[in-house]
Structures are given as structure tokens and as C-alpha cells.
């Protein structure tokens, strides 16, 4: 396995993932070979303390599963994931009992759909207070109210809002309620799973600025899962691209966008609809769809859709290699092609 060396800025590593795999067993016959769905397979990455880490890929690429595995909400079948925030040092796969409870306080999740993630029968105050009560983080009702008010104010919700029920709020306001609930236990690490995908663009910018503010002011590290590369480009410091459960590229945001080292990354970049009506050529389009993860193609899993694929790609799986500081990619021919140019040069 490739060692990812800590270079670049010397921030402390918060989460260190080595060869992580999440496999789900599929039902098979008695004598038939048991099949497994490899949702995440052999992922190695590091999330530095205080960064906004983006995780992108199409649906079915395993980005949500990886996010959940890091929260111990999906079973880890192989490899390790270590969480070290300076106070505690946990092996996420082995967490249980008291330690797991403590980890829940430190790592939280924001969901995609604020219409589905808030109980319609609870007031906003009760929704935000629930994590405190469940995790027994406060000793009195006054203290709970105090913490709820404090975080609500940071998410720009006023006292009047706290008395109401979720149905009275718009999408953007609801997402701010969901964010307040995730942050009320003062976590150091938050997984935001498509947290702005369901919002209008006018509101999306507002929620993104809010999250960015929490990173800046409270030093919270985010794992920002998204399929929208233009959003990721704006908000994330570091980006990892997944395809069929594997990490195909990871780099600081500006490097990934200016000089992608994997054809899948550049294909994703060129698929973003340009805001310029005179730029309708749109570069090279990716053919076909993501294959089923129950039966991934041999060799490089991307070869079935890759315009550059050769024989080697069909036979041998490329390993993640370092190109320059902190920029890793998994393509046999990364040096031979300038993917940016081949795809119409849309990237920044």
C-alpha cells in the first residue's frame, strides 16, 4: 500500500485511513459462490485537522459509505481508520461502549434532505436539544437551553424560531436547523453528506458560507461529500475523487482542478455545464454509466469508460501514486496525457 507522507503544511492529522474496505455480503445460493458488494475498497487517505475535505464521485462511487464508515455507521471489513484530535486517539473500526459514545460527541453528520431529516412533531428547540439529552452532555434544563440558544444564534436562528415546528421553515432555514443539531455537541469532525444538494442556489451559497465560517472560527474539520464539483472547488481545501469504491485521485483543491491526474477527474470537470452560452462544445463527454459495484471490471475499474484506456488498463489495477506534493492519482498513464487539454481545457 502506498504511504501518504505528511508534507506540505505541517498540520496535524485528524483522520488517517489505511486500506479501508467496506464490503456488504449479497445473498447467494447454498452452493453458489458468495458475492460481496465492495462499496469501498482499499481507500487510503488523510484528513488534516481543521481542513474542509471534499469527497466527490458519481452515485454508486462509495462516497457516502466511506463517510459513514468514518462515523462508525457502516461496518469496516478491512483496513484501519484512526481518529486523533489531540485529546483522544481512537481506532474507529474497534470502537465500542463508552469510547463509541464519546466518539459520537466528537464526530457528527449533516444529512442531505432537510425535509426528511427533521421530525415534524418536535419543536426546533427539542430537535436541537435532543443530542445533548441523549448523550447526557448537560446536567440541567437551563444548561441545555443555554447551549441550544448559543448554537442556534450561530446558525442565525432566533428565539422565536426555536418555539416553532419544522414545517414553518424554508429549505435553507431547515438546513440551518439540521446544522445546529449536528454542532450542538461541539464536534471536532463533521461529515456533511450532500448538505447543499437539495437547496436552491441562492440559499446554497448562504449555507456554504455558514459551514466555512464554522471551519474558520471553531476549527471544525469537515468531510464534505458532494457530486457538485463547482461547489467543492469553492469550499474545500483538499479533494478526493472516488470511482466504484476506489480512490482515483486526491490533491489540494487548486492542484486537482488545474492539473487533474486522472481521466475520471477531468471528465467530471468537463461535464460541469459552463455558464458561458458561447462555450457549448463542452469538451469530451464521458460515455456510458458507472458499472455495478457487484461486478466491477477487472484491471482499472474505469477502463470501460476511459477514452485513453489501453491493454494494461484492462489487466492491471493501477495503484495510487504521488505526483508532486500531496497530489496522488491512480492511473497508469497519468504522465503521458494532459487530461485537462484533452477534455477541452475547461478547468481553472
Amino acid at each position: 500500500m502506498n504511504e501518504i507522507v505528511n508534507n506540505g503544511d505541517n498540520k496535524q492529522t485528524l483522520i488517517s485511513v489505511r486500506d479501508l474496505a467496506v464490503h456488504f455480503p449479497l445473498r447467494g445460493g447454498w452452493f453458489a459462490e458468495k458475492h460481496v458488494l465492495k462499496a469501498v475498497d482499499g481507500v487510503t487517505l488523510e484528513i488534516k485537522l481543521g481542513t474542509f475535505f471534499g469527497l466527490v464521485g458519481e452515485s454508486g462511487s462509495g462516497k457516502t459509505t466511506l463517510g459513514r464508515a468514518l462515523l462508525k455507521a457502516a461496518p469496516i471489513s478491512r483496513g484501519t481508520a484512526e481518529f486523533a484530535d489531540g485529546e483522544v486517539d481512537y481506532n474507529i473500526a474497534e470502537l465500542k461502549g463508552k469510547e463509541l459514545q464519546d466518539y459520537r460527541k466528537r464526530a457528527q453528520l449533516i444529512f442531505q434532505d432537510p425535509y426528511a431529516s427533521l421530525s415534524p412533531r418536535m419543536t426546533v428547540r427539542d430537535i436541537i436539544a435532543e443530542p445533548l439529552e441523549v448523550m447526557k452532555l448537560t446536567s440541567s434544563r437551563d444548561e441545555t437551553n443555554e447551549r441550544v440558544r448559543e448554537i442556534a444564534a450561530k446558525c442565525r436562528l432566533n428565539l422565536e424560531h426555536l418555539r416553532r415546528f419544522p414545517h414553518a421553515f424554508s429549505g435553507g432555514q431547515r438546513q440551518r436547523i439540521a446544522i445546529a443539531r449536528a454542532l450542538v455537541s461541539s464536534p471536532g469532525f463533521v461529515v456533511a453528506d450532500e448538505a447543499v444538494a437539495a437547496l436552491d442556489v441562492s440559499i446554497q451559497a448562504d449555507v456554504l458560507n455558514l459551514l466555512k465560517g464554522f471551519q474558520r472560527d471553531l476549527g471544525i474539520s469537515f468531510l464534505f461529500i458532494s457530486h457538485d464539483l463547482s461547489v467543492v472547488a469553492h469550499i474545500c481545501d483538499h479533494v478526493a475523487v472516488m470511482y466504484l469504491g476506489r480512490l482515483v485521485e486526491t490533491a489540494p483543491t487548486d492542484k486537482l482542478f488545474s492539473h487533474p491526474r486522472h481521466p475520471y477527474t477531468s471528465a467530471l470537470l468537463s461535464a460541469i455545464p459552463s455558464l458561458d452560452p458561447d462555450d457549448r462544445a463542452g469538451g469530451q463527454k464521458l460515455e456510458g454509466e458507472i458499472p455495478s459495484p457487484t461486478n466491477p471490471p477487472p484491471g482499472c475499474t474505469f477502463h470501460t469508460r476511459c477514452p485513453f484506456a489501453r491493454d494494461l488498463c484492462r489487466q492491471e489495477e493501477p495503484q495510487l501514486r504521488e505526483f508532486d506534493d500531496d497530489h496522488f492519482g491512480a492511473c497508469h498513464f497519468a504522465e503521458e496525457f494532459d487530461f485537462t487539454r484533452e477534455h477541452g481545457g475547461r478547468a481553472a
Partner: protein
Amino acid sequence: MSLIDVENLTLQFRTDEGLITAVDDVSFSLEPGEIMGLVGESGSGKSVTAKSLMRLNPDNAVYGPKSRIILNLDSGPVDVLKLRPGRGMQIVRGGAISMIFQEPMASFAPAITIGDQMVEQLLLHRKVANEKEATTISIEMLERVGISDASKRFGQYAFELSGGMRQRAMIAMALSTRPKLLIADEPTTALDVTIQAQVIDLMKDLVADFGMGIVFITHDLGVIAQTADRVAVMYLGRLVETGTVRQVIKTPAHPYTKGLLNALPKLDNLSAELTPVPGDIPSPLERPSGCVFNTRCSVSLGTPCQTRIPDYSYVGEGHEAACLLLEEEAVKA
């Protein structure tokens, strides 16, 4: 001659809380072969406007007395709002106008094969001799939209197809009746960017081939920039700006359009600050008086904007926007 003329369309919903205005005095027309992008936030009334063209709104919808939706068919003009319910609507629904939706899984019947659904509507709406001919047409259409192994897919159910494939099948079904007008309601929103790019290309190809007009509803200005010829921006049921795609995206005139564009992440300038449109879209029960956008507008003039409904000002050839600031500029000039 234009394909469809919408004049002074006003639509209110009767609810327990009173009348809610969803569409307020909207007028536009569409030429054959033209793609018009209808943009706006959720709650802006873009879907309701599009559904009015086929009168698909629920029974509590009340159309304003001056509203006209004139569909120019080969047999002569038809006012959609005057058609009788039921059979009278058949020339419009599935005949002259087809619609594709955001969530293709929800729009196919789950327990009937794709093929049977395509054949059924062909037999109903197009003069097709028999089932065999309808089958041939359907399979051809599935091939045309890029579905491989079309005759196998013809016998499958919606759940057996992937998301992108389902959306293609949906487009094939909508176009097999040869509609004059296609209403596409957020057809790419539920798809991955790579698949979205494929579907956009397909739709542009099909317009070139079939020459129908498309009303393309989306909240994504990037998708609009890539597909539309003209754009209409809606806010709280009103059309605030219309123009060609270049005019609206490159030289927006209305503060709301400017706000939407500023809120969008831009790939050529990653460090640019994202500026949200301040506040939230007001509830339709608390419709602001005067200019509907005045509660969120950063350049509002105060009282004048809160009291007077702005007229459409000329911005450029075919480019109009409804804002008092533009009216003032016109007076000064």
C-alpha cells in the same frame, strides 16, 4: 407563427388559508424549434406555469379571467384554457404537448413494461394502424435516444433500468407521439453530472431533428446556458426578466437575476466569495406588495418599490426586465 402564446396568465389556488397566487400576469411566447429556459427558485411558480400549458394543475386552481394560452396547431389556434375537460384535452395532453419530469421512476407505472406504456400512448394519440407498428416505432425511438439493446429494454420494467437510462426512456416515450411542444421539468436534476451532460446533448440533438419547441424548467443556470435559446426568470409567480440566453446570463438587468448569478460557484475564479441572495423566498401567503422582490433586494428604493408594481423596461432587443430602477434610468436617458 409562434407555437404557443401565453397571455396574462394568472393562476390562484383556493386553499383553507385563502387564495394563494402562484402565477401572476405572465406572458411569453415560444417559436417552433426554440428552447426556452424557465428559471427560478423553488416556489417561484415555474412548474405551475408549465403545467398550466396542459392544464395539469389540481382542481383548486383558478385561472384569471384575462388568461389565454393559445396553441397554434396545424388545424388552427386553440385556447387551452377553453377546452373541455376529459376528451377535449386529448389534442393537447400527449398529443400536441408532452412532458418529462424530474424523477423518471415516479412517472413510469412500476408494474407495466416500458414497452407496453409506450405502445399504449401511441395507439391513443397517434394514428398508428396496429400494435405491431406501434412496437416498431417505440423500439426505433428507444434506439434514437441512445438506449442499447432497445428491443430487450422494451420488455423491461422501469426499476430494471439505471437512472440515466430511465430518463432516456422517458424522453423516448414523450417524443414518440411527435409533440409540437415538450415541457421538460427539471429533467437532469436527479442525474449525475456526467449523465446530465449526455442527456443535455441528446435533447439538443432531438430539437434539431424533430423541430419541436421546448420549455426547459430548471434552477441550474449552467444547464440553461448550455441548452436554452431564450430565458425567462421567475420570482414569486412573476416573470422578472426575459431575453436571449446571452443577454440574461452575460448582461443581467434585474437585481434578482444578478443575485442568482452571484450566488453561483464559478470555476474560473475559485477564490471569489459566494454571495447569497439575502433572506428566503417569502411564503406565498405573505406576498409582498409592489415589486415582489423588494423584501430581498439589495438596491430597493424603499417605498416606491413597496407600492408600485414595476412595468417591463426595454433593456435590449428582445430583452426586458421589470424593475423600477430600470424605469428611472429610462426616464433620465
